[in-house]
C-alpha cells in the first residue's frame, strides 16, 4: 500500500491516495455536481482534463466557484 499524498486544497491540509487524479479528489470532496474551476499550483486545469491529471505530493489546489460580486 503506497503512502497517501499530502496536499493542500483551498489552503486546507488534505490527503489523497497515491495515484489519485483530480477527478478522484473532486469525488472525494463531493463536489461533482458543483460548477467549479480548478487551479493546481496556479495552472488552470480544464474540467475535461480532471480524469487524467494526476495529483502530486505538496500540490496546492484551489477550487473556486462564482459568488456574488460587483
Amino acid at each position, binding site marked *: 500500500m503506497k503512502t497517501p499524498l499530502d496536499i493542500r*486544497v*483551498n*489552503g*486546507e491540509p488534505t490527503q489523497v491516495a497515491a495515484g489519485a487524479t483530480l477527478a478522484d479528489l473532486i469525488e472525494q*470532496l*463531493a*463536489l461533482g455536481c*458543483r*460548477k*467549479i*474551476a*480548478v*487551479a493546481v499550483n*496556479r495552472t*488552470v486545469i*480544464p*474540467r475535461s482534463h480532471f480524469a487524467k491529471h494526476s495529483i502530486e505530493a505538496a500540490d496546492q489546489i*484551489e*477550487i*473556486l*466557484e*462564482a*459568488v*456574488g*460580486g*460587483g
Partner: protein
Amino acid sequence: MGESYTLGSHTFQSRLIVGSGKYDSFQTQLDATVASGAEMVTVALRRVDLTAPKSENLLSYVPEGTTILPNTAGCFNVEDAVTTCQLGRELLGHGLVKLEVIGDERTLFPDVPATIEAAKILVEDGFEVLPYITDDPVACQRLAALGCAAVMPLAAPIGSGLGIRNPTNLRIILETVEVPVVVDAGVGTASDAAVAMELGCTAILMNTAIAGAKAPVQMARAMRLGVEAGRLAYESGRISRRLYATASSPLDGLASF
C-alpha cells in the same frame, strides 16, 4: 428599446450591467436583476466551502440567458488577476472578463500600471477585457490601444454612492477613446445613472447602489428607468445651455389691453 451595442463578441440591448454582491439572499438578488432588465451580471470567484458541498450556488439564481461576467475583485497584483480570469473563462465558457487590479485597500482605486500590464497579457491570450480603471483619459487610451473591449472608468470609489464626480474627465474619455465607455462604480441613485448616460457612456455597471438600497428590487427598476431616460435624452440631443430666457410662447399676436 434603443440600439444594441457590443462588448467584444457579446451584444446587448440593456445598458445597465449589475453586480450580484451584497444581497441578503439569492432570491432578492434574482428579483433585483430581473427588475433591472440587465442582460449581464458580474460575479466574483471565491473558494468553494469544502464543508458544505451541497449548499446553494449563485449561478442557480441568475435569469436564463444572462451573460455572467467574472471579475477579479480582491486581486492586488497582475498574476492573481490573470489566473482569476483564466479560472473565470474555464468556469463560464467565454473570455469576457472584468479586470480589476486594486492598488489601495481603503479607496479600492485601481493600480493603473498593473491593470495595463494584466490587460496586455489577457488580450494576447484572447480574452475580451473590460478593465475597471480610474477616470484618467490617458490610462483609458492606453487600455483601448492595447485591445481592450471597453474601458470602465469609475464614477466615484466603489460602493461610495457619491455619483459622477468628474463628468468632464468622462467627456474627455468619451471623445478620445474609440472603444465603448462603461461607467463602473460609484453611483448612488437613478439620477447618477441618467447623468452617465446623458454624457454618452455606452453602459453603466453598478452593484451597491441597488443591493444596498432599502428596497433593492424597486431601486433596480429605478436604475433601469434612469439608464433608459438618460440614454434617450442623449440620443435626442439636448438643447444648449443659455444664460437668458427664450420665450416658449409666440411673441406675435399679443393682445393690447
